[in-house]
């Protein structure tokens, strides 16, 4: 078990956003958190990455409790978040965005190597490396956001709504990339509203509703679960 979230409660002031949420992520797995708006998916990710701290419960990473560790330390240890909504640094060039991703890495050689491998994976970014991030198209920005996450050399990658606002063909591409990244050994925790896409590449999934885990299981089972089909897959039966 690389990541183990145990009964966390998270509050935004008086609002109780997560109630006793638990989930796990094993090495090499893709785990999807699905649910409607406001179900607590992004809050869960932000708690794992240290942007938020749980009021009770534990986030255990590689056997250590990281629930009160600072975000920069968590990045350094290998959990990297790709924030929601393609939040890239719009006025910085693609190259600088990637450099920022490797901010916690002090070894220049490692940074250069990673840059190379990221450019191999995303040739489009290499073409546009001197262009300000804000001038890229939506799909390219999402790729940049993911590439920036990879620059930190993550063991666990937290992806927050990678398909948001993208055309279907681009969504396919992004999910192919996610699968490739997973194949090369990175464990992935994926938050998605597009439940069908998310569950089709995930190993396991958790369904969140109003701050609670209401359902969990193997991704394939969830895809055929009548509750999930009704609530998140628009009532259609899948293949």
């Amino acid at each position, binding site marked *: 078990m690389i990541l183990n979230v145990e009964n966390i409660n998270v509050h935004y002031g008086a609002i109780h956003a997560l109630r006793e949420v638990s989930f796990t992520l094993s090495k090499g797995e893709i785990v999807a958190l699905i649910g409607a708006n406001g179900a607590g998916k992004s809050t869960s990710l932000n708690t794992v*990455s240290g*942007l938020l701290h749980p009021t009770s419960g534990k986030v255990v990473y590689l056997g250590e409790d990281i629930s009160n560790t*600072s*975000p*920069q330390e968590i*990045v*350094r240890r290998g959990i*990297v*978040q790709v*924030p929601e909504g393609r*939040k*890239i*640094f*719009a*006025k*910085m*060039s693609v*190259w*600088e965005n990637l*450099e*920022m*991703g490797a*901010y*916690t890495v002090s070894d220049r050689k490692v940074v250069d190597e990673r840059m190379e491998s990221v450019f191999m994976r995303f040739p489009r970014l290499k073409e546009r*490396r*001197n262009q*300000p991030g804000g001038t890229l198209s939506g799909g390219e920005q999402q790729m940049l956001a993911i590439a*920036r996450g990879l620059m*930190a050399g993550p063991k666990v990658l937290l992806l927050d709504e990678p398909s948001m606002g993208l055309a279907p063909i681009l969504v396919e591409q992004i999910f192919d990339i996610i699968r490739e990244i997973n194949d090369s050994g990175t464990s992935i925790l994926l938050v998605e509203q597009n439940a069908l896409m998310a569950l089709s590449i995930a190993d396991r999934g958790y369904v969140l509703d109003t701050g609670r885990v209401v359902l969990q299981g193997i991704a394939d089972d969830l895809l055929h679960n009548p509750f999930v089909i009704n609530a998140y897959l628009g009532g259609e039966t899948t293949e």
Partner: protein
Amino acid sequence: MNKTLLSQSLRVGITFGVIHLFLLLIGFNAMLGSLFADIARVKQSGSIPASIFLVLYCALLGVWAGYSAAKKEDANVFGRKLVRGLIAGTVAGLISAVVSIIFAVLVTNKIDPRKYLAVLSLDFMRASLFNLPVVQGVAANFGVLAGAGLAGGLLTALSSFSKVKHAWKNFAGLVKGGLEKIRYCTSGKYHLLFKIIFLVVLAAAIFFLPTKWGSYWNYVIGTVGIYVILGLGLNLIVGLSGQLVLGYIAFFAIGAYTMALLNAPEPHNLMWGFWPALALGVVLAAFAGILLGLPLMRLRGDYLAIVTLGFGEIIRILLKSDLMTSFTGGPRGIQDIKGPTIFGQPFNTDVNFMYLIIGGVLISMFIYNRLKHSRTGRAWLSIREDETVARASGVNTVKYKLLALALGAAFAGLAGGIFASRNQFTGPDEHALMASINVLSLIIVGGMGNIPGTILGAFALKGLPEILREFANFRLLAFGALLVVMMLSRPEGLIPSRRPTLQIPEDPQSDEENKEVSHVD
């Protein structure tokens, strides 16, 4: 004759008429007329210039009105432009005539309205009628504006003639080509040579100018230099790390008061000497920056601005309060602050201080530049762009925000120390909110986040008002108008920041030698 032509020209005419009325009521015409008289080297007694210069003022305003109206004409038809100019001028002239009639009535009845409008003396009103008898005066007021409006229209119509346009285009092309050439020469192959020549000339200028141009210019340019240091410091905080801090001048006050308290006979007579006091001022200011920063870390944007504004006011009011009078000298401030010495020799003439300020500016520029292009600088930029993402990327945002505040405050402390020592005086009112706003304006006017912009902004905001002294009371009016115009025409500042970008070479072979920081628009 169509409707838009008429209504647009009418509107321009009314606008200019109202502007004329307003300027008349505050006596701007007399002031500008005096300036013309000065330029023409005509002696005048009192504040009212010879009539001819007032006519000139009216004519210029009329030409401007005519030009503005004619410019709105899309069709390239000679007559239509003339008509537009004439309409605008006539309308403005009518308004002017009405005002003149009122003036004339007041003058003939010897009613002095100065109780309500300070500049409207009988002499002034007579002068506004061009010292002519009533009827002719009113007619002249109308005629000059109307005629000038027509002239403005004519000017516009002529300038859109293809020949004139062509000549203008040629000229603009020539200038542009010249600039390109200079740019070419200063980049690439000739880069180094030009740089060296430029630096030598600059160094010579820096060395010799302060001894040549006299104490007045040393004072003016010295103040500009102080504000360059302040601007760079605030740029670190606002321009680079993106924290809108409004009470910045408080750090300047800390530097100035440290210098004053340690180096003046009153109220403590400590006499530490200049250099230790300067160093302590810098350290204390930086420390205050951190102290202020700690509670600020949770705030962003407007909230941050308001809290820091409060901080600035607290410092100023504390310095002024009865409570502190025995310690800081209260509202009177502190006088007779001793100047610096170098190896026991006094170093306190205006030229010496100019060198000191130039040294301070150079050091600040160097530090600013190094920081901006360092890892720290990039962390600041990422915080400015998106604090949450910066945190998610592993940037310790608290540390870097505090660092920006501390360093920016240290710059202000340095500037404050030198400033107090040079003026041999500091008092609480030097550190009012207006000074903070001045510093913020100068970096906005100059262009956020870059050194040339800061220098230009400091000249524009501190140097220009000094040069505009001629305008006396209208200084702030002219200055405000200038700011409005500038923000409309160049919203990103006179010199917009070009984002520095780490350039990686196209060709992987020459990797090491090409890796340099260059600029991309």
